[in-house]
C-alpha cells in the first residue's frame, strides 16, 4: 500500500517578537485555522479522518495536554477523530507526515491529517524544561551546547566565513520575497482570521526584501557570549579538539526567524482519494531519521538523507529539488558541501531564515512548499531534510504522481 499526499496548507508566519501579529492568537487557534482550512479546501467529511497528528516542540502551557486533540475539537472536527501530539524537535511536523504515511502504508489508516503548530510568542523556548540541557549530569555526559553555538562550530568545521553565511541569508530573503511577489505561495497559505471575521495576517511578516550584505554586516554575533563566557565553546572543543577558536559568525540575520505558525497536510490511500473525489499530488517515497552528534545538534541532515536515499534505492542526483531547513545558514551550506548539491536546487523559494521557523509546524510546511514548487517547475522528485535537537536528523523523499 502507498501513502499519497492530497493537499497541504499553512498559516502565514508571524514574527514572535514584540508587535508580532500572532502575539494574542493562541496556538490552539493557529492549529485550528490550519485544520479547518485543510478540511474545507477538500470538503472532507471529518468522520473519515483516522487521526490528526500535530508536531509541537514545547508541548506545555497553552500547547500542553495534547494540542492536536484540542485544536481539532476547536476546528469543529467530528468528536470521533482522535489527535496526537508529536515531538521530535524541529522535524516534528515532518515526523507527523512520515508516521502518517507509514500508518497508511501499513493499512492502519485510510485518511490522516499531519502537521504542526508552534507559538513561540506565547510558549517561549525552554519553557518546557528538559534534562538534556538543564540536568548537569545529562548535559555533561552528552556535551550539551546551544544550537547557535553549534552552528558557529559547524561553520568553523566546514571553513565557512561570515560572508558565506551572510550571502546565504541574503539569498533566502530575496528568494522568499520573489516567490511571494510571484504568487507562488498564494495557493497554500490560509490567512488567520479572528472571531470577528477580521484578517489578522495573510502573508509572512518576517521577510525583508531589502536585506543585503551591508545590512547584515552591522549585526553582532549572537552566540559569542555563550560560547566564550558561558563555556560552551569549550564544551564543543572537547568533542572537536582540532578547533583552536570557534568562529562566531551567526546572528539574528542568518539564523532562522523566531515565528508563530501552523500547518496541515492531508494524506491517504489511493482508494480513499478515489472514493471522495480527490486527486493525489505526491507520494512519500521514503523517509529516515538518524541520531547524530548531540553537541552540535545540526549534523543530522546529511546522514538522514543518505539513509532515506538508501531505503529508496536512489542516489542524490535523482533529487530535483531540496528543502533543507535553514535553522542556521551553516546547516544548508554544510549539507550542500557534504552531499555535493547544487545551491540552485536548494531552498529555491527561500526558507526559515527569511520566513521563520515555527518549530513544530516547519516540517509539514517544507513538504507543502516542495510539492508546490515541483508542480510549478514540472519536476518529479524532492527531498526535505531537517536538523533536529539533541542531535538527530530527519529526511523525507517525495515524488509527484
Amino acid at each position, binding site marked *: 500500500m502507498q501513502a499519497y499526499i492530497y493537499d497541504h496548507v499553512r498559516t502565514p508566519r508571524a514574527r514572535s517578537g514584540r508587535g508580532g501579529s500572532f502575539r494574542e492568537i493562541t496556538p490552539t487557534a493557529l492549529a485550528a485555522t490550519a485544520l479547518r482550512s485543510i478540511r474545507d479546501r477538500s470538503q472532507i467529511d471529518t468522520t473519515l479522518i483516522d487521526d490528526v497528528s500535530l508536531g509541537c516542540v514545547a508541548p506545555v502551557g497553552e500547547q500542553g495536554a495534547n494540542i492536536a486533540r484540542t485544536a481539532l475539537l476547536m476546528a469543529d472536527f467530528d468528536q470521533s477523530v482522535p489527535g496526537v501530539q508529536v515531538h521530535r524537535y524541529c522535524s516534528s511536523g515532518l515526523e507527523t507526515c512520515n508516521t502518517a504515511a507509514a500508518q497508511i502504508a501499513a493499512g492502519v489508516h485510510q485518511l490522516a491529517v499531519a502537521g504542526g503548530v508552534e507559538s513561540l510568542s506565547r510558549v517561549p523556548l*525552554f519553557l518546557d524544561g528538559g534534562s538534556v540541557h538543564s540536568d*548537569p549530569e545529562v*548535559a555533561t555526559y552528552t556535551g550539551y551546547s546551544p544550537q547557535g553555538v553549534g552552528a558557529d562550530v559547524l561553520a568553523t568545521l566546514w571553513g565557512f566565513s561570515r560572508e558565506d553565511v551572510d550571502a546565504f541569508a541574503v539569498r533566502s530573503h530575496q528568494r522568499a520575497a520573489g516567490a511571494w511577489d510571484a504568487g507562488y505561495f498564494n495557493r497554500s497559505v490560509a490567512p488567520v482570521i479572528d472571531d470577528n471575521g477580521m484578517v489578522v495576517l495573510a502573508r509572512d511578516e518576517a521577510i525583508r526584501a531589502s536585506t543585503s550584505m551591508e545590512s547584515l554586516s552591522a549585526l553582532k554575533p549572537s552566540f559569542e557570549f555563550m560560547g566564550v563566557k558561558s563555556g560552551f565553546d569549550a*564544551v564543543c572543543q572537547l568533542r572537536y579538539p582540532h578547533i583552536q577558536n570557534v568562529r562566531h559568525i551567526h546572528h539574528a540575520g542568518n539564523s532562522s526567524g523566531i515565528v508563530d505558525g501552523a500547518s496541515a497536510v492531508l494524506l491517504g490511500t489511493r482508494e480513499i482519494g478515489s472514493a471522495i473525489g480527490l486527486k493525489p499530488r505526491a507520494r512519500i517515497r521514503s523517509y529516515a531519521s538518524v541520531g547524530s552528534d548531540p553537541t552540535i545538534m545540526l549534523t543530522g541532515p546529511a546522514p538522514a538523507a543518505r539513509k532515506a536515499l538508501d531505503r529508496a534505492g536512489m542516489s542524490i542526483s535523482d533529487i530535483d529539488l531540496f528543502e533543507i531547513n535553514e535553522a542556521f545558514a551553516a546547516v544548508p551550506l554544510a549539507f550542500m558541501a557534504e552531499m555535493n548539491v547544487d545551491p540552485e536546487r536548494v531552498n529555491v523559494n527561500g526558507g526559515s531564515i527569511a520566513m521563520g521557523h515555527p518549530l513544530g509546524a516547519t516540517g509539514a510546511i517544507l513538504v507543502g512548499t516542495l510539492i508546490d514548487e515541483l508542480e510549478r517547475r514540472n519536476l518529479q522528485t524532492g527531498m526535505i531534510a531537517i536538523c533536529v535537537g539533541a542531535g538527530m536528523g530527519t529526511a523525507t523523499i517525495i515524488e509527484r504522481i
Partner: protein
Amino acid sequence: MIDYDVTPEGAAVLTWNMTDRPVNVMNDESLKLFAELIEHAITDSTVKGIVIASAKRDFVTGADLVSFLGDRTPHIIFEKARFTQSILRRLETGGKPVCAALAGSALGGGMEIALACHHRIVADKPTLRLGLPEVTLGLLPGAGGTQRLPRLIGVRAALPFLLEGRLVTATEALGIGMVHEVVAETDLLPKAITWVTSQATPVAQPWDTKGFTLPGGTLGPVEVYQVFATETARITARTHNNLPAPRHILSAIYEGHNSDLDTGLKSELRHFVSCACSVESKNILRTNFFGVSDAAKLKGRPAHEKELKVELLGVTGNSETVKAFIDVAVAARLPVKWHGSPHTTLPPEWADYVTLAETREDLQQCSYIINGDESNTLTDLVPQAFLWSHANQASDGRAHLRLAGPGRRLIEIIRSNTTTNSQIAFAMDLSRRLRKVPIVIQAGQNTYIERVGNAYSETVRQLVNDGISPVLINSAAKQIGMDSQPLPESESARQISRTTPNEWQRATDTVAWIKDVLLTAQAEEALRCLDDGTVSTPLDADIAAVLGLGYPLHLGGPIGYIDTIGAGKFMDTRASLKRDAPITPNIEQILRKHAESSLSFHGD
C-alpha cells in the same frame, strides 16, 4: 570533647572542645556525642533553647577525612554521611530554638552545622571566614550545605560558594543573609543565650515552614535552563570534565532545590557518596589534602634538628635562576642581601626587600646563602652556608636547591650521599620561609622535575616532528588537565580551512592517542626516578609533579595515574601506542609485578 552546660536562663550551651586535637573535627566519636547532647537538650523540658559554640579559635573545621574516608565502600560512607545529616535534621526540627555562636571561622562541616541552626551570630573579627570549601578538596558538602545554602540565599547566590569554595567575612556574610548578627566577640555568647531563650516556640526553619519559596522565587524552567545549562558548561570549560566534585555539587543543587529539604538531602547524599568514592577524589585527597599539606608542614623534616630562622637571605650570582630565587624571596617578604656582578643594579620592584652586598664579607650576617656564583664556594665565609648550584655538582656535601618554574610551589632539595640531616632540615626551613613546598630528591644528572618535564617536552617535540598538529597536541594537554599549553597557539589555525566529518573523527582519535602518549611518557619517567632512587616515594613523585609541573591533580600524579588505570592497563596502553622507545627492563618488571598481583604503587 563537647562541653554541655545549661545556663540559669535555660539555654543548653554545647561547646565543641576537642582537647586532644588542634581543631574541632567531626569524627565518629564527636558526632555520636553531638547527637546525644542534642537529643538530651531537645528532650530536657528545662532547656528552652540550644547554643552551639566552640572553645577553639575556630568553630568546627569539618569531617575528619582520615576517619571518614578510611573505608571507601559506598554503603559505609552513605551511612556515615546520613548519620551526620540526621543529627542536623534533628537539631533544626526539634522545635527548640538553636543558635550558632561563631567566634571564629566556620568552614565546611562547621558551616553546615551553623546552617542547620535557626540563628547565626558571628564575632566581628577581620580574620574570620565562612564558607564551604569542600569543592577545593575534591568533595562536596555532604551535611546539607548544597541544600540549605540555596534555600537561605537563593540558588544563584549560593553557586560561587558551592562550586568555587568562595569564602566571606562576617560582614559580607551578613550582607547576603548568610548570618543574622555580627557582634563584638564578648557579646557573642550572651546574645546567643538571649536569642534562644526569648523565642516563641516551636521554632522552625524557613524551609520547613508552609508556603516557603526560594529567595528570589522558585526558578521557572527557563531560569533552570539559564542557571544549570550555563553552570554545567562553565564547569566543563574550567575542568574539562576531569573533576567529579563540581558536577556532583551542581547535580545535588539541581535535583534538590525545588523539593522538600529531606528529599534534597537524599539527592545530596547520593552525590556525596559517588563523589567521595570516585578515584579522582581519592587521588586529589591523597596528593593534595594529605600529601601537599604534610610536605608544606615539613612532615619529612629530619627529627631533632635545630630550626633555622631565616631573617636575611644571602644570594650570590647574576643568573636568571638566582634572580628567580630573589623574586620568590621578595614575594615571601624575606629580606635579601644580594652579591651580584660588579655592575649589578637593583630592579625597583625588589627595592623594598633587597639590598646589595658591596663585598662578600657583607654576606656574613645572612642566616642562609644561596650561592649562584660557581667560581666561589663561600665555605670560608659562613659556617652554616647552604649553597645552590647544579644538581650534578651536589657532591660537595651541601644541600642544593632547585626552584620549579615561575609560579610553581615546589622546591627540590637535592641531597647527595654526604649531605647531612641538618643541611636538609635547614633547606626545608628556608623552603617554608619562601612559602614553597620542599621535596627531597637524590642528586643525579638531572633533578626529578627536570627528568619528568623533559620526558614531556621531548615527547611533544617528537610529536611535532612526526607531523602532528600543534593544535591537537595543545588540545590533548588541555584535556588531560595540564595547566599550561606545551606549544604556542598556532597562527595558521586561525585561517579558514575546510574539514570533513571523516577528518573530525580522525582528529578526535588522534587527540585520544596523544593524551595516552603524554601521560605514559611522564609516568614512565617518574617510575624510573622511583626505581633509581631519585625520588624516594610514590607520594613524593606525585606531589612534586603536581606542584612542579602543573600535572593534573585528579590523576594524583604520574604514579597516581598508573594506579588510576592499573599497571596492566598501563602496559597495554603503552604497547598500543606504537611508539619506538623500548621499555626499560626493570620498569617492565616492576609494572608486570604490580599488574600480576593487582598491586597499586600507593598501596591504597
